[in-house]
């Protein structure tokens, strides 16, 4: 058995430090939760087997259970102050049952046999209540029965790295940005997530997985108190499914200095002239556009109306599959849950379906959906693409986005090559404000750093710019893609969906891409 107490600190000391944030619904004992060893593995296996057997006895035609343990460490600083250090742990099990073609779900933080029986009874009761209201029965596609384990790739376990090492990194990052004349504030965070997941289904699958994610992020701000003006430059979308080596290997300090210079320049930048521009969108912004306009529109549960009350529906309909023109013929968009480093990468999804890779848009044509075992049959497919996910043992699993990525050009094309073809345009980098309608047609995205392109050359920074378009029009206007060397993988760590809301971490890879004749607003004058 391997002890995994944080940095050798006793639990009592840890709680006394005031840094602990242990939610009310989680087990109170950090040490007990994070133990990974034969005794807890035996307990979770026994509880899972009893829950599945009991559900079957009570009439479930199918049941699955997730017995999961999560650890999170979050460190927040600003300038040379430590704002917050929190560690949380959460463990429990969630049982899903199918009775008379309707779902029931129950969860508890007590991973034990007696609770397993209670959960089975509760879930079956709920399923019967649902069945009375339902007008159609759930049918699941078959999936392979597997007994296996899978661990995400990482070299250095972030939970084994001393806290002072992490704080020293953040404070040095802050100092680097603050050293740039004109930078007023900098905030930075490190978040680490460690998921131990165990899945068992009445089909016979038994899958143990471990996933480790590392989330560094920072924001620089410059304020001009005399004029009452201020600007920010966030660098917040670089989380990956990797270990602490990401903090050590990536040139974060160079990025912090660059972000410092950028925010100072942004405060002095001229306001953009609204109009139509050719755009080169850098991967640091384009990933978000892909997320909103492609990732969400190709969710089949949305298209079928399941999310109509909150997230919304989709402009794509099942009848469009295979022939609707989504974009220019150079546009290929691939869903992939096996992509190295991808935040939505996994060995198996939350109903035991192996990670898949498939085209959503091929040669500009919309060809396929994101599916689960329940959704696939509704569009005539016999296999799930493996998109079921729950953000906690206590959450009902439902369809969530895989990594969705724009494929690069076959030959090497640089960002400068893309700019060289533009007489009057804008180069857009980084996260700005994003907003898109509930069917994923009309979007408006800002950027963190936006520069003019004149006669093929990248020039001065402008501010207050946002590009606005309609998803199929925008992707149809794409006439240039960067090559393989320009491809980057960026991610969003807290994509929200569902009621009650759940979060999902997902990445989007892409090269820089060129889009012609796109509407650009001046957001400072629009209102």
């Amino acid at each position, binding site marked *: 058995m391997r002890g995994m107490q944080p940095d050798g600190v006793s639990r009592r000391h840890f709680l006394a430090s005031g840094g602990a944030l242990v939610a009310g619904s989680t087990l109170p004992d950090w040490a007990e939760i994070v133990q990974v060893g034969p005794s807890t593995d035996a307990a979770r296996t026994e509880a899972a087997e009893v829950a599945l057997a009991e559900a079957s006895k009570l009439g479930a035609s199918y049941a699955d259970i997730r017995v999961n343990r999560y650890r999170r460490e979050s460190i927040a600083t600003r300038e040379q102050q430590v704002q917050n250090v929190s560690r949380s742990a959460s463990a429990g099990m969630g049982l899903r049952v199918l009775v008379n073609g309707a779902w029931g779900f129950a969860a508890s933080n007590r991973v034990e046999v007696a609770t397993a029986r209670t959960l089975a009874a509760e879930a079956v009761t709920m399923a019967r209540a649902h069945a009375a209201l339902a007008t159609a029965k759930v049918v699941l596609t078959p999936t392979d029965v597997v007994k296996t384990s899978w661990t995400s790739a990482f070299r250095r376990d972030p939970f084994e790295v001393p806290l002072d090492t992490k704080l020293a990194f953040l404070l040095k990052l802050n100092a680097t940005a603050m050293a740039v004349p004109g930078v*007023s504030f900098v905030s930075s965070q490190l978040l680490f997530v460690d998921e131990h997941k165990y899945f068992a289904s009445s089909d016979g699958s038994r899958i143990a997985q471990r996933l480790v994610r590392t989330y560094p992020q920072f924001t620089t701000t410059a304020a001009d108190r005399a004029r009452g003006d201020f600007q920010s430059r966030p660098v917040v979308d670089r989380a990956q499914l990797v270990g602490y080596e990401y903090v050590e290997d990536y040139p974060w300090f160079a990025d912090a200095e660059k972000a410092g210079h950028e925010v100072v320049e942004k405060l002095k930048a001229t306001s953009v002239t609204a109009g139509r521009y050719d755009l080169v969108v850098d991967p640091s912004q384009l990933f978000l556009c892909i997320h909103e306009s492609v990732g969400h529109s190709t969710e089949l549960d949305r298209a079928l109306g*399941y999310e*109509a009350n909150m997230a919304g529906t989709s402009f794509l309909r099942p009848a469009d599959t295979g022939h609707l023109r989504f974009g220019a013929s150079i546009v290929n968009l691939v869903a992939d849950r096996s992509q190295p480093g991808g935040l939505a990468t996994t060995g198996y999804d939350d109903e035991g379906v192996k990670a898949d890779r498939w085209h959503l848009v091929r040669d500009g044509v919309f060809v396929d959906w994101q599916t689960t075992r329940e959704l696939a049959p509704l569009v005539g497919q016999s296999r799930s693409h493996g998109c079921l996910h729950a953000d906690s043992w206590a959450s009902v699993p439902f369809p969530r986005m895989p990594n969705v990525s724009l494929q690069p050009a076959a030959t090497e094309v640089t960002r400068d090559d893309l700019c060289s073809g533009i007489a009057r345009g804008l180069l857009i980098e980084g996260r700005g404000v994003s907003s898109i309608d509930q069917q994923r047609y*009309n979007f408006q995205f800002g950027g963190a750093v936006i520069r003019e392109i004149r006669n093929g050359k990248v020039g001065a920074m402008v501010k207050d710019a946002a590009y606005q378009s309609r998803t199929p029009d925008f992707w149809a206007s794409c006439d240039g893609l960067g090559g393989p060397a320009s491809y980057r993988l960026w991610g969003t760590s807290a994509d929200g969906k569902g009621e009650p809301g759940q979060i999902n971490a997902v990445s989007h890879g892409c090269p820089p891409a060129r889009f012609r004749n796109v509407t650009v607003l001046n957001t400072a004058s629009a*209102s």
Partner: protein
Amino acid sequence: MQIARVSPVHREYVPTLGPLTYQESNGFADATADIDVAARALALRDVLAACREAGVGGAGVHTATASAVAVATANGNRRYVRSSEGAFSVTARSTDGTGSGYSAGDHFDVRRVDVAAIGRRAVDKAVRSQAPRPIEPGTYPVVLEAQAVADLMGSLAGAFDARTADEGRSAFSGKDGKTRVGETLFDSRLTLYSDPAHLELPAVPATDEGIPAERITLIREGVLERLPYSRFWAAERTQAPTPGPVNFIMEVAKPTPMGALIAGMTRGLLVTRFWYVRLVDPRTIVLTGLTRDGLWWVEDGQVRHPVRNLRFNQSVLTMLAPWNVEAIGPSERRAPFMVPSLRLAGFTFTSRSDAI
């Protein structure tokens, strides 16, 4: 201890609170905590039946939550509070996808959430919103239902912070290092306050930092009256920590009924709800987002026909400015807000949306 040892001197440390007295909290109802699953299913069956009768589909969520929080500090602070919240919202959509209607309600006592009435409103909106006509983007007079106003409140509420204003990075930062406290920024009929003892929208009687919450006024008759100080910032600026806000309440003594708000508009738009609202420019609280689930053209005081959805880019400060607020309607609870419907002289829509 380890965190303390490796950290630089915590310049923003404030000692934990000692014994303090808190108001009783009235935001807990046994009926919400003990909700019966079967009764809930029956209520939803009625909504689903109403959808079927009207030939529309429905997707919605009914929630009931109860929570208890206990806090103890080494310096002797002790507080314990229970709270509950019930909510129902539903979106009804015509089967051909050309109409969509939304309605919602919430209350800490789930018996006060009228599921049937909410369902009827959503179905009615779905039926009446079918086959919307195109409309050009531009600046139009609008009537915003309370839901739509609530959808815009988050960024305004977030700007009520003394520190960011003092640091020069807030909409309430003034020039030359000052703040805008004392300026008339809003229509003189608008008052925004927080009150843990509000009868409809009671709140936890303590701020996140544990300061006992009291009724405080943020905007009084259009004047920016106060910006809340955290414990640390209060000590920095020799102020008392602000006993709030714990909720955001905007209501007028004699609201104009909804019918009269519409009847008083010569030409303009009636807005049910906004969606994907994001802060574009914190300097003036410019928001972008889209209309959704019920947008109608109003002419000569009559709702004429549904129109296609629009994206807006609009400053909240401009929206609530003295020259822009024409009439104020009844307030509705959308926790943590309680806000009125509004008739505004201008609201800026910048592009069309094909979404329904």
